[in-house]
């Protein structure tokens, strides 16, 4: 069981590409994207009516060393286009995959 960091990002779906690029640039080993989420912040409700304007919820687990780079890369995007990012602690189950790669 390895100690890792859990990054959660909620943002408008129009930012998704930029966010994923930032994550990849930071070298995170993977991410999961949930689309079509609705949300509200102090800045107003984003209803899930028009798919082009709804929110996405991105989860990425990365090593504790990577977390600063990730935040550095995400910061300008969230600052400019909105969205929030939270970090918490987790441990990763060790998996020795036999699956095709």
């Amino acid at each position, binding site marked *: 069981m390895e100690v890792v960091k859990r990054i959660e990002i909620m943002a408008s779906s*129009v930012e998704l590409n930029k966010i994923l690029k930032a994550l990849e640039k930071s070298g995170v080993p993977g991410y999961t994207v949930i689309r079509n989420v609705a949300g509200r912040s102090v800045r107003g409700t984003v*209803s899930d*009516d028009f*798919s082009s*304007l*709804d929110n996405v919820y991105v989860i990425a687990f990365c090593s504790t060393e990577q977390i600063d780079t990730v935040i550095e890369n995400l910061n300008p995007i969230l600052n400019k*286009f909105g969205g929030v990012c939270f970090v918490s602690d987790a441990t990763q189950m060790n998996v020795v995959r036999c699956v095709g790669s």
Partner: protein
Amino acid sequence: MDVSLVVSNLLNPPVLFFFLGMLAVFVKSDLEIPSPIPKLFSLYLLIAIGFRGGSELVKSGITQDVFLMIGAAILMACVVPLYTFFILRIKLDPYNAAAIAATYGSISAVTFITAGSFLDQVGIASDGYMVAALALMESPAIVVGLILVKVFADNQDGQEFDWGEILRESFFNGSVFLLVGSIIIGILTGEHGEEVLKPFTQGLFYGALTFFLLDMGLVAAQRIQDLQKAGVFLIAFAILIPIFNAGVGIAIAKLIQMPQGNALLFAVLCASASYIAVPAALRLTVPEANPSLYISTALAVTFPFNILVGIPLYLYGINLFWS
């Protein structure tokens, strides 16, 4: 104004379903059309209208009338955001003014389609090639809006626009791309293609419009609460500017001698505002503007206004001029 026109417009099933959707929100019904069902119908409408337009463009050919119409369309798409920008600057900062100007310079395909169904209802012909105007008027306003931002907003962080991205967002966004693509496929496959897809693109057309307007009613009514933020100035803008734009459109239509049906469709394009493609592009390119302002005015005021009052009103005006 001719009451029978208003009644004809109202007794159109799609328009009544729009009302029904609004009513559902007002009486707090839990009626909802979960995503992506509305997306299915909006894709369908773009394909159907584009494809039919293409088929009919083949039949009519690229005549002088078509050329004049195309010129008028591009002109209005560029000019409307310019003058609306300066009107909006009275009360708003340059970012929000440019964003709303872009929204009103662009068009709403569903308003166009509803106007087409209204023409069917009252028995006035229109040309299928008008769909070319629909396709051409969606994008230019985005670019004009961004130029306005560049010129009039003091660029604090000295950032440059990524024009490649902007042009892609403007001209290759999903709705423009699908509409233009469908027009071209309609042209290429001609009569045979029309035959094959007829039950799909024509049979289902009003049904899909009905479903989509039901959803639009739900969405527009939900947006109404955002109008508080917009204030009286913007609400008045969202009603008066469409009438003014339609007036300019009608004058141009008269000038280039469009037949009445085409003139109505052109007026409706000028009068309508985009609430899907343009807002999506603006979120990325003018993040400083507040989306709830430009979306809620276009969606909760201008769209219902055009659907319920505007369309018969503009036809009334056209009837006056043309007779």
